[in-house]
Every structure is written in C-alpha cells, then in structure tokens.
C-alpha cells in the first residue's frame, strides 16, 4: 500500500470506498508473530509462535484464557490484545454471575466485533491493531472465530494469522476436512505441524511455541512446555533443516514482507530497522 491523501483519518473514505486506516490496522496483524487455531466437533486447539526479543527477555503472552470454555490467541499489537482480553473476561464473568451459565462464545464474538466497529467510526479513536482467534464452546458445540480490526468476524474450521501464516494456512487447507472427527491428540499434532510451517525451517521446540486446548469436558488451559515437547518428540515434528543463526526478528519480518508480496517499499523499509518499533 502506498501513502495517499485519504489515509490520515479513520473517518475519511477514499473515492474507491476504502477506509485506509482500517486496512493499515489489518497490516499490523500481518506483522505480528503467527497464531493458529483449528477445531474438531468437540475440541479447539490454539497455538502461537513465541519468540523473545532477546535472550535476556521472556516471551510475550499471546494466548489468554477468557473463561473455562473460551480462550483467545492474538497477533498484532499485544497491548491492544491484552485490553480486549480483559474486556472479554469481564463480559464472561458478568454473564456467568447473572445467569449462572457460561456465555455462549458466538455472542461474545459479536460483542467484540461491535466494539471494534466503534473504533472505525469515531474521529477520536483508532482501530485496534490486533487480530483475535477466539476458541470456545456453546450449546451447538466447538467454535473457532477470527475477529478482525475492521469489526468483521468469521467462523473457521481452521485458520492462521500473523507473519508467515500463509504457510500454515496452506498446510491447514490440505488437512482441514479431517479435523471435524479428529481426536484431541491428533488435533494438537496438527496444530504443532502448522506452527512448524510458519517457522520456515527452524527447529520446532516447545520453548518457542505455546499451545492451548479447550473442549467438551476439558476447560481451557495452556499446555505446559514439557507436555508440548513430548508431543513434538512423539510425533516427530522437529524441523529437518537448521535455521540461520541470525536475529530471528529481522529475518522474520523481512521474510514476512517478501511473502506478503504487496508490501510497499517504504513500509518494508520501516520494518527493516532491526527490531520492530512496536512490541509485536
């Protein structure tokens, strides 16, 4: 995308009927590190790539438990993601308190989407720069939704967002027809395989990824590192080639820009400054 005279305000339409600020917000999601989700009839698995900025720091939390039956994985501005998770937790717990019943995930997702839409129609606000993969159960079974900064939401059998998510999506597209009847463990295996696809050759180990599961009879929880490593070993999901030892952030961002294809020169240039300016 190139800069133009209609992109200053979220309340300005372009002559082609586009809101550029909203589209720029969706770019922020594409720059974040990958998050994937897939579901069967009874379970949903969320996974994400968790790379720390440097060896000295810990990784950012990108998967949040919203309630026993709902969890969310984010990609993009993690600060925005954190704030939206707090909103979701609040809505969930208020509903639980009033009705003594879990909030149906479909309703939470609509509330989230309406909240995001507000930010696309106020001159004093900006859109949220985060994409959310919402996994949850309700009366009609297991659901996976994707909430966009634009205020749209879609339901998916499987989806991936963030940088190099196209590789994961390709993998998921080949396999999704089997997911509905998959067992919980095979679902986790498929999630790990999809995460591996986004690593582009780097070795998959539990220290760089996070996996969470929710299902009928299984409250939402993040799998601990040991369990994930065991599953990686058991299913032999370790990558074949060794990735370059260079800083993962710069190369990741560069490859993401190249992969998107449509990345403008100036935008590619600004993200090329070594460490990304915003905490992604």
């Amino acid at each position, binding site marked *: 995308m190139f800069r133009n005279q209609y992109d200053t305000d979220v309340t300005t339409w372009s002559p082609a009927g586009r809101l550029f600020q909203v589209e720029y917000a969706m770019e922020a999601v594409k720059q974040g590190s990958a998050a994937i989700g897939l579901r069967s009839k009874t379970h949903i698995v969320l996974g994400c790539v968790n790379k720390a900025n440097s060896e000295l720091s810990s990784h950012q939390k990108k998967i949040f438990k919203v309630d026993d039956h709902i969890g969310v994985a984010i990609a993009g501005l993690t600060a925005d993601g954190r704030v939206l998770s707090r909103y979701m937790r609040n809505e969930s717990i208020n509903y639980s308190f009033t*009705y003594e019943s879990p909030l149906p995930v479909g309703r939470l997702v*609509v509330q989230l989407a309406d909240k995001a839409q507000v930010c696309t129609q106020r001159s004093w606000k900006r859109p949220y720069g985060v994409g959310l993969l919402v996994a949850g159960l309700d*009366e009609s079974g297991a659901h996976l939704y994707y909430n966009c900064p634009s205020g749209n939401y879609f339901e998916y059998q499987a989806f991936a967002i963030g940088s190099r998510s196209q590789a994961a999506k390709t993998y998921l597209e080949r396999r999704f027809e089997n997911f509905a009847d998959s067992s919980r463990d095979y679902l986790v295996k498929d999630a790990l395989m999809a995460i591996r696809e986004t690593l582009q050759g780097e070795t998959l180990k539990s220290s760089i990824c996070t996996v969470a599961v929710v299902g009928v009879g299984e409250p939402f929880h993040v799998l601990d590192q040991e369990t994930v490593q065991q599953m990686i070993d058991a299913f032999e999901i370790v990558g074949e080639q060794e990735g370059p030892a260079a800083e993962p952030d710069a190369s990741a961002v560069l490859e993401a820009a190249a992969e998107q294809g449509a990345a403008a020169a100036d935008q590619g240039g600004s993200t090329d400054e070594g460490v990304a300016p915003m905490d992604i």
Partner: protein
Amino acid sequence: MQFMASKQPENSLLGPESDSQRTLYPYVTGTSVVALKYKDGILMAADMGGSYGSTLRYKSVERMKPIGKHSLLGASGEISDFQEILHYLDELILYDNMWDDGNSLGPKEVHNYLTRVMYNRRNKFNPLWNSLVLGGVKNGQKYLGTVSMIGVNFEDNHVATGFGNHLARPILRQEWHENLSFEDGVRLLEKCMRVLLYRDRSAINKLQIAKITEEGSTISQPYSLKTYWEFSAFANPAQGAVGS
C-alpha cells in the same frame, strides 16, 4: 411538585424521598403457588385470586405465565410487581431472541437473572413484593426453583410459596416421587390446592394448572375443586376449643 409530605430527613441513608416511592406494603396480592417435577417436566398450580387486604377482590388474575420457549413463572404477592417482572422478562427474552443464534436462555438462566433482580431491589430497600416460582425444561433437563422478595433462591423437586410452604410441602414430602405420571402429578397438586382452599382464607376456588415439557407449555382453563364441608369438625368447629 410534592403531594405527599416527605417524612425522611434529606440526609438519611435511604436516599432522597421526594423522587422515589418504595414498596412499603403490598396492596393487591396473590396467594400460594405450588409446583413439582414430574416425568415429562414441571407442573405448577395457582388460584386466580387477587386479594385487596382481606377482601377477595379480583377473581380472574393469571398468576402463571410462560417465559420464552423453556420456562414458566408463577408468582404470589403484589400483582403489580409481578407485572413489572413480566415486563423485565419480556425485554430479556426479546434481546435473547434478537441474537438469532442457536442459543437461548433456559430456566436456570432466567431463575438466576430473577434472583439478581430481586436481591438488588432488596438491597435498595425497594423490594418487588413477590415470591416467584420458576420451572422449565431444556435439553431434557428439568429445572424448578424459587426466589423470594429478599433474594433467597434455591432449587428443589417441589416448591411452594407463602401458605403453600406450610400446608402443601409436607404433603409433597410424603407423596412426591421421581417420574410421577401427568395424572398422578395433577392429582397431587389438586390435593395440595384443596387443603389450601380449606385453610388459607385468601384462597379462592378457581385455579389453573400449568404444565411445561420439552415440547412447550400449556396453562389450563380455570376450573374449581370439589369440596366437602360435612366433616364433623367443620359442623361444630368450636367443640373442644378452649374457652367455649
């Protein structure tokens, strides 16, 4: 513009009197509601009386109403407060339907919502002067609960309000069992309502029985119970009484 002299000093903890009127006592009241779980769902009975103090003033008051697809609400106490509650529930069900997704509020959710409403009003010293019975079936699960004007709520296999607690519950404790047939359930409820008719002076002999199952709810046409007044104790009620 105040027609009623305010007796509260403005700095009282109960808040400004000039723009609020709290329920201090009930005016038009309904008496007991009795309900039980049976094989296919819930059966509920209530008479159609609305008393104005000791006068049996209104004789066609429907004290049981269906709520949404899955629930039935019966109320005793102030009738106008019951109408207010129905108004709140109308709105609740409307918004629930407007989501237009596969989800709907079941009896448990409605019961808990009502508990919140009743308890919050009690905390503001402005109660809805009712005892409510909420029954329903959803996804094969039967649910029967009650909420009082002070927000006390619980579920059970059979519940009653007011005098029903003292006269009907003992009968139900003896004779209720799981998987009652419809006919047995009705017979048991009528037995309870007959005792209430004999002994509760606000009861009238015109009642409705409501049923709710997975398929839906029905409320019967009003009818009356046969009574027998030739019991020897009724013939000479004061016999053996102290001071007679």
